[in-house]
């Protein structure tokens, strides 16, 4: 096992444990904290794959922005009753059964059919790690591999989101 494999095992254990803890813990503030660990572990997976820009976007937007927003809104809305209410036993058992069956189907399909060109985890090659220069050129070009239209669409979406959030949440 080289260093990449050891890092992958550490990150995978962190992500799996934290994502299960996010959905079973009783306190909602703890759920948000476990989600933060899941998102940081995901950023680590992106770094392992060689997508450093994506990993830093993940840390800045998710871990820096969205989690803070969630913690604020949890503290604003729940107040004293921050403990999550219980379900009936039958409902949580059937939900558990449903997700386990779905997971078994998906993992079984992955296991049975290997992907074409499946490779072992090694340090990513120079061509597979896009530099900041390349990402900026792709983002703002209009040719075949350019993403100017979705880039502008996302900026309009964010503007609409700011206006909508203010309009919905303002005091009347």
């Amino acid at each position: 096992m080289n260093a990449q494999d050891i890092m992958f095992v550490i990150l995978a254990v962190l992500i799996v444990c934290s994502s299960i803890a996010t959905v079973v813990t009783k306190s909602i503030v703890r759920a948000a904290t476990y989600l933060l660990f899941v998102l940081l572990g995901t950023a680590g997976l992106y770094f392992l794959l060689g997508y450093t820009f994506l990993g830093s976007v993940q840390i800045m937007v998710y871990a820096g922005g969205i989690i803070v927003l969630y913690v604020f809104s949890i503290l604003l809305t729940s107040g004293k009753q921050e403990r999550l209410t219980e379900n009936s036993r039958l409902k949580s058992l059937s939900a558990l059964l449903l997700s386990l069956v779905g997971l078994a189907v998906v993992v079984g399909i992955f296991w049975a059919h290997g992907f074409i060109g499946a490779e072992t985890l090694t340090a990513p090659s120079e061509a597979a790690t896009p530099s900041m220069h390349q990402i900026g050129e792709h983002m703002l070009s209009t040719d075949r591999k350019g993403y100017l239209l979705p880039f502008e669409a996302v900026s309009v979406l964010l503007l609409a989101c700011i206006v909508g959030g203010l309009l919905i949440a303002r005091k009347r």
Partner: protein
Amino acid sequence: MIQIEYFLFVSAIMMFAGIYGFITRKSTLAILLSIELMLNAADINFAVFNRLLYPNGHEGLFFAIFGIAIAAAESAVAIAIMINIYRQLQNISVDQLTKMKW
């Protein structure tokens, strides 16, 4: 040796943990946390398939970046709605939100 496919198992576990939470949670904010888990699993899959099947292109990378932006917008608007609901009803549990039920 670790195959790159193993990333897909991690994201599958994350996805189905999110589905379990989406079904069992009662608080709307906890449901939103589960939705974030599912979106995050989808973003991992975009990046992994990019690396696995077409390592010299960057399509999956850009899809994941736009997915992150859309997830941020979605959670901001959803949190605004929850805060508005809390102002009106002093409760954000899905059991109590029956005002718009037909």
